[in-house]
């Protein structure tokens, strides 16, 4: 089971729910599960957000494996100069 925390700007999809538990073994499964519970949330994250797994930022990946018990957070994609 994964601990997923939603930032304030994503809580509009979850009716204000700040955190939830999700069963998934990679990012693709995680986003699919979120989309089932909160339609549009998974798609929004895939399009606009980076996924952090235990603090490590993953951008542009769906296949990254996630270990059971990991902490998940989503942040806006980061660019740079």
């Amino acid at each position, binding site marked *: 089971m994964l601990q997923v925390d939603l930032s304030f700007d994503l809580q509009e999809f979850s009716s204000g729910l700040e955190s939830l538990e999700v069963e998934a073994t990679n990012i693709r499964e995680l986003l699919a599960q979120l989309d089932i519970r909160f339609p549009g949330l998974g798609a929004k994250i895939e399009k606009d957000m980076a996924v952090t797994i235990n603090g490590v930022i993953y951008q542009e990946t769906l296949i990254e494996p996630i270990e059971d018990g990991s902490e998940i957070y989503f942040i*806006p994609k980061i660019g740079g*100069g």
Partner: protein
Amino acid sequence: MSTNKDYKWVGTSPIRPDGADKVTGKAAFGADKNLPGMLHGKILRSPYGHAKIKSIDTSAAESAPGVLAVMTSKDLPDLASEMGEAGESAVDFRDLSQNILAAGKVLYHGHAVAAVAATSPKLAKQALKLIKVEYEELPVVLEIEDAMADDAPILHENQFTPGGSQDKPSNIAGKMKLPRGDIEKGFAEADVIVEREFTTPTVHQGYIEPHAVTASMSASGHADVWCCTQGAFVVRAMTAKVLNMDVGKVKVTPSEIGGGFGAKTTVYLEPIAVKLSEMSGRPVKMVMDREEVLRATGPTSASVIKIKLGATNDGKLVAAEGTLKYGAGAYKGSPMGPGCMCVFASYEIPNFVVRGFDVVLNKPKVAAYRAPGAPMAAFAMESVMNEMAGKLDLDPIDFRLENAVKEGSVAAYGPKFPAIGFVETLKAAKEHPHYSAPLGKNQGRGVGTGFWFNIGMQSSATLNVNESGSVTLITGSADIGGSRASMALFAAEELGIDYDLITPLVSNTEEAGYCDVTGGSRTTFATGMAVVKASKNLVANMKKRAAKTWGVEVDEVLWQDGQAVPPFSSGKNPMSMAEIAASAAKTGGPLTASASLTAQGAGAGFGVHICDVEVDPETGKTDVIRYTAIQDAGKAIHPAYVEGQYQGGAAQGIGWALNEEYVYNDKGVLQNFGFLDYRMPVANDLPMIDTVIVEVPNPAHPYGVRGVGETPIVPPLAAVAEAVNNAAGVRITDLPISPPRLLAEIDAK
């Protein structure tokens, strides 16, 4: 500086492979490309800061001597609003197209309106004067808070604030909120509260080389583009999108680049040059002059940032509130998001809220600039941290150490930090002799810190082994800071051969594997990872070839010091790379290896800067007399170039703090459009900038690399401002701290 003695090449600082050509004038930059029959393109730009375009008549220009093509936005496909990935961050392709050539309205002085291709630059310029544009002038809005007002002139009638009224258009294009804990409770626990508002002006990246492109469209519809860019693949993607072409029909070859700092991650001229070439049937060259660069390319945002900070008497932060407003220029997309995520990222604060606003204005659309959004946020937060340390009678570094994030801390933007080096960097600053050196009359010292995420993204690398055993190393990552040398060091280390045997190249979009832009401090981290992976693939292949030659199992072959070593029992002698390459035809053909990846796990960078200034109380002039930049690099692959990044970022940040600003009149016309009046620091304005490379390895990289290019511009603004405060006794909250502004504050004291 530290170096790891376990490596032979990584951690050394050899001469850059492109160095001799650059110092002898042989390196080819963007404007150096010429083709037979080439035309010269020029742009007609708006004389108004904001106006409707009622009509454009190009007929006289079309028949002018030497003119072979004239175009306006009507010659570009009418794109729907669509966000897409194009380089470092998302872009709305409709905005991109309309920024390249205005459609319906001009949104800033200098906005491109039409373009001409003629047989000489002079004839092209003369033809521009024959284009008749009828405008209806509109009121301009140049200041962020003016643009947010209910009665502000509206730039885009179809833009509405997310979460706001969907009936009334707005200049507030985006909002963001990051809350944690209970700030009312947090401030109630605070013994001391500091609250201040800060402003920073629009500033330009100030790269020496203006934008330049040469394009040639073939009769079969294949575009060849040569340009100076931080990312050939992003130029390809954007040009293809704006012209509704398949990316496979656009080939982009990057030239050497005379600076970018984030700004050359988008396109202005390239689609125009391709279209003019298509219309004229001739190659077209376009080169901006300095005035065009300053008037019409993307600077970085002005900002208005308010910080409220609460701490207990023992120096613990308990609450913070930040409101960050960034000007985006003419189209949405300021660095508000990263600014909000960075502002409290360096400290453990149990209760806070950050609110961000992305605001459009009648100025050029902003482009990326080193750590976009972070320097302004750090100027505000670090200035308040310095003031708070004074009120608590604490050493400013000790106060930061008390609250610094470390491995396991929950970052203000959400996740827990993996291994980071902020504490180590702060301690290195405190121990540096500069920090305790005595100061003289009218002199002061300030400290500032900075954070930047750094990024990974996509990279590729290919190694081709030559018959002699030397290696050609090809990537598509533009080299803006010496990355060819770093790539060669990685390959030399992995292959076990001399650095001089490797020729690193930056190739075009048809010959190199895909690489995202050189930006986000990603190239040494991510493209370096691809080079390491390709090198390991090559070593595996060469071990197989040697095993075949000797008739042994590949598992029995070792790779040591650039040689395949056979098992002792075989009685064979080791084979060098040259020997393996020489026999490659007999063992399976040419030796080549590639790797492509999406690099994950970029390591956050933290820096601490110490600045000493001397203020002339008679004139308000500030001289930086000593400066030290300390930063965690993870691992410095080429330490001299890491130091160069620290020094360059510090120099740009000092300029931002002391002198640089766009000065507009009330019609939105930029007044200081050259380097005489847009005052960047030059060599004799600055002392030698000392550096300390801290190395806390990033566990996600095979050599521990973090990015280093962006963090160094984050700390200087607050460090300089605090030094001025301590020298002159006045706290400046509006940048730049120019002599007139500082003198007025001193006189008012």
